[in-house]
C-alpha cells in the first residue's frame, strides 16, 4: 500500500527544510517516497536555464503534452527548489500551507 502522510509527520518537515539533499532517516524518506511516487503526467520537474545557477519549475506532460515551464517559479539553488516543491506537494496532499 502506498504510504499516506499523517499529521504526526509534521515533525520531519524541519529536517527536510534544513537539509533537503542530504541523506534522510527512514520516516522522512517514507514521506518523500510517497510524494515522489506520482504519475509522470503533471509531475513537477526542474528545467535548468542557467547552468549551475538557475532552474525553473516545470510540469512533465507524460509525453502527451509538451513540458510546461512555470516561468514565475525561478530558483537559484537545487535546495531552494526542493523546499518549494515539498511545500507545494504537502499542500496538495494535506491541504496545509507550510508558508
Amino acid at each position: 500500500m502506498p504510504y499516506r502522510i499523517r499529521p504526526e509527520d509534521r515533525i520531519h518537515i524541519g529536517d527536510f527544510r534544513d537539509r533537503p539533499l542530504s541523506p534522510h532517516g527512514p520516516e522522512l524518506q517514507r514521506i518523500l517516497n510517497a510524494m515522489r511516487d506520482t504519475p509522470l503526467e503533471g509531475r513537477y520537474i526542474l528545467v535548468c536555464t542557467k547552468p549551475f545557477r538557475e532552474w525553473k519549475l516545470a510540469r512533465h506532460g507524460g509525453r502527451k503534452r509538451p513540458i510546461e515551464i512555470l516561468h514565475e517559479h525561478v530558483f537559484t539553488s537545487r535546495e531552494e527548489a526542493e523546499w518549494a516543491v515539498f511545500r507545494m506537494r504537502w499542500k496538495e496532499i494535506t491541504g496545509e500551507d507550510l508558508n
Partner: protein
Amino acid sequence: MLKLIGYADRFSVAPGETIRFMVSALEDQPYQAEIVRLIHGDANPEGPGFKSEKVPSGAEAAHVGRRQDIRAGSWARVPFHLRLKDLHSFTVAAMIWPTTPGKGRQGLIGHWDEEALAGWLLEIDGQGRLAARVGDGRAAVEVGSGVKLHPSHWYLAAMIYDAAAGTLTVIQRPVTAYGVVTDDGHAAQAAPAPLIPDCAITMAAVRSGEGVGCHYNGRIDSPRLIAKALPPERLEGLFLQPLPADLTGSILAAWDFAQEIKTTRIVDAGPEGLDGEIVNLPTRAVRGWNWDGSEHCWWRKPAHYGAIHFHDDDIYDAGWQEDFRWTVPDDLRSGVYAAHLWSGDAEDGTEEDYIPFFVRPPRGASGKVGRPRLAFLAPTASYMAYANDQSHIDAKDAEMVIGRLLAYQPSDVFLYDHPELGRSLYDSHSDGSGVAYSSRLRPILNLRPKYSSWLGASGSGLWQFNADTHLTDWLESHVREPFDVITDEDLHAEGYELLRPYQCIITGTHPEYHTVRMWDAMKSYLDLGGRLMYVAANGWYWRIAFHESLPGVIEVRRAEDGIRTWFADPGEYWHSFTGEYGGLWRRQGRPPNMLVGIGFMAQGFDVSSHYRRQPGSFDPRASWMFEGIEGEIIGDFGLVGGGAAGLELDTAKYALGTPPHALVLASSEGHSDLIMLVNEEFGVVPPNLRGSEHPDVRADMVFFETPNGGAVWSTGSIAWCGSLSWNGYDNNVSRLTGNVLRRFLDPRPFA
C-alpha cells in the same frame, strides 16, 4: 530549444584518417565550426570549470546550416520484380503479433503506392482491426475484419483477392481462442483488380511517395504471397513446415525471417528469390508464433524464430548529409577531441553543440612504437549503451531513485520532444518492449561536454563521457602524464595487440559493457604483465555484441538477472548479431572480480561518501601508495555527490573470483539509505538492503599483482574521479591515484 545537433561517422579516428560530421541546424541558420581538444567537460563552478583548446584544423569555417531530420521506425522492403506485376487472383498471409494495435493505422505488408492509390495492402486500420485494401490507380477499396486485435497476441492475418469474382476478403484469425473473446473476424467486399505499382514491397510500414509512414509495432512471422485465391480453410497450411505439396506450386514468395538473422537481409524461400532487407534494425532472433519453449536458442531451432519485431522508434543510421570533414594531421597527439559548432552564445548552451571523438594512435606497426606509457581506454561501448537515455523522461520511479527533483538540461527537453533521436539500451520502445540495439550514427545528446546527467549525483551530476573528463583533465592538467586514447571499438577490432604497447591502462568511470573479444584482450594483457587502473565501478558487467558487418551498433540481451530496466523474454537470451548467449558476465562464469578483483554490489544516486583505510593498505606490498597521505579517511569531498565513493559500488568477493592475494586497501562507509544492494546478490529479499544497514553496501579498493610482473588497482566507485580536482588537485584522492600511476608506469615487475 536546441539550435544545433550533430554526429560523426566514427568515434575513433587515427592520424591521417578523415572524420565526417553531419549537422542539423534546426532553424536553417548558419553556424561556425572548429575542432577542439577537450580537457575538462564539467562546467560546475565548484571545480576547475570547462576547459578546451582550439586545434588549428582548417575546419574553422562558417557553414550554411540546414535542418536535417531523422526518420525513425523500422520496416522491410523487397525490391520490385516483374513477376509481381503478373498477379490476378492472389493471397497474402502472415502471422502477426501486434503490440499496439490501437495506436492508429499501421502497415503490415503491401505492394502499395499510397499516393497513386495503386496496389494491395494488408494493414491494421485506425480502429485497431485488420484490414485489406486494393487500388486500381483511381480509387482504393478497403475491407476491415470488423473486430479489434488484442495487443501481444498472435493472429493469422490474410487478404484474398479473387479476380474471377471481383472480391476482396480479409481474415483475422487468432492463434489462441478464448471462450467469450471475439477477435476472430472476416469480411469480403467487391473490389476492382489492383493496378500493381512499380515500387518495392513494404513490410511494417506504408509506402507514401519516396518515404514510408504508418509504422507498425509488433512482430511479423512468415509472410507469404500466393498467386491464387486460396480457400480460407487452407490458410493455416501456409504456415506448416514443410508446406503441403498442393500449395507449393502456387507460392510466389515465402519469406523466412529465421534465415540470415545476423544480417539485414530477409530471405525469400520461394521460387523467385524475392529477397529484401530490413531498415533501421528491427529486433531479430525473437520468438515466432510457433515457439513452444522446447528450445531457447534461436540458432538451434530457427523454425521457432521466424519473427521480426518492428518498432516505430527503431533507428540505426540517421543518414544525414555530410556538412564537413576533417583529416587528422599525422602529428596530432592522441586524445579526446570534439567538433565545436555554434550559431550564437546563449548561456544555456542551446546555440552550440560539441560532437566528441577520439584520436587514437596510428594503425598498424607505426602505432606500436614510441607511444606514451599510458593509455586511457575510453568505454565507448558503455557510452553507446547509455546513448540518449530517456529513463528520466519515461521512468516513473526516476525521481524516487535519485532522491531529488529531476533537473532537465535543455537537451533533455529537446529529447522529450524528439523521440526520433532514438533510445538507449536502458529504455523501452514505444510499445513497451526493451531496446536491444543502440547505434552511434545519430546525435547523442548525453555524450557531450557540459552535460549534467540526471543520474550523476548531487553536485556536477556527471555520468559516463563527461565524468571521464574528470580523469583526462587530471592527467593533462595535474600529473601532466602523456597518454593515448583507445576505445572499446578499437579493442573489439584489434584485441590484445591494441593494449600491448602500454605499461598501464586506465579505465573510464563506468566501463560496464564488453564483448568477449574485449574481455579476452584485457585478460591477456593482465596475464602478460600489463597494469590496469580501474578507477570505476560496475565494470565488465553486461555482455554485448557488436554487429558483424554494420559499423557502430551494439546489442544487449537483458537476460536472467542483474540491475535491469527491462527484461529479455524467455527464449530471447541469445544475441541476434552473433548467436552468443547474452546477459551478465557474472552469469557466464566470468565475474568482473576475475579481472579487476571486485564486482558490482550496490547502487544509489543521491550523495556519495568516503573511504576508510583498511589493514591491507599497511601491507608493504601496497603501503607505498599511501605515502604522503595522513589519516584514515579518503575522499570525503568531491564534485560527484560530495564524496569519492558513490553512484555504483564494487566490493571484493573471493567466491566470485577476487584473487586470493588481493589486498583490500580501503572501504567506503556511511552510505545513504538510497544506496542499496543489487538484486543479483540476493534470492530471498532481505529487509536490510539499505546503506545504513547492509554490510556489503560499500566500495572496496583493492590491489593485487598479476603474473609476469603486472598489477591491478581498483577503486570500486564511479564517483572516484569526481574528487581528483578538489582543492586545486591537492587532496588524498589525487595523491593516492598519482602514487599508483607513477608506480604502475615504472617497468619494475611487481612480483
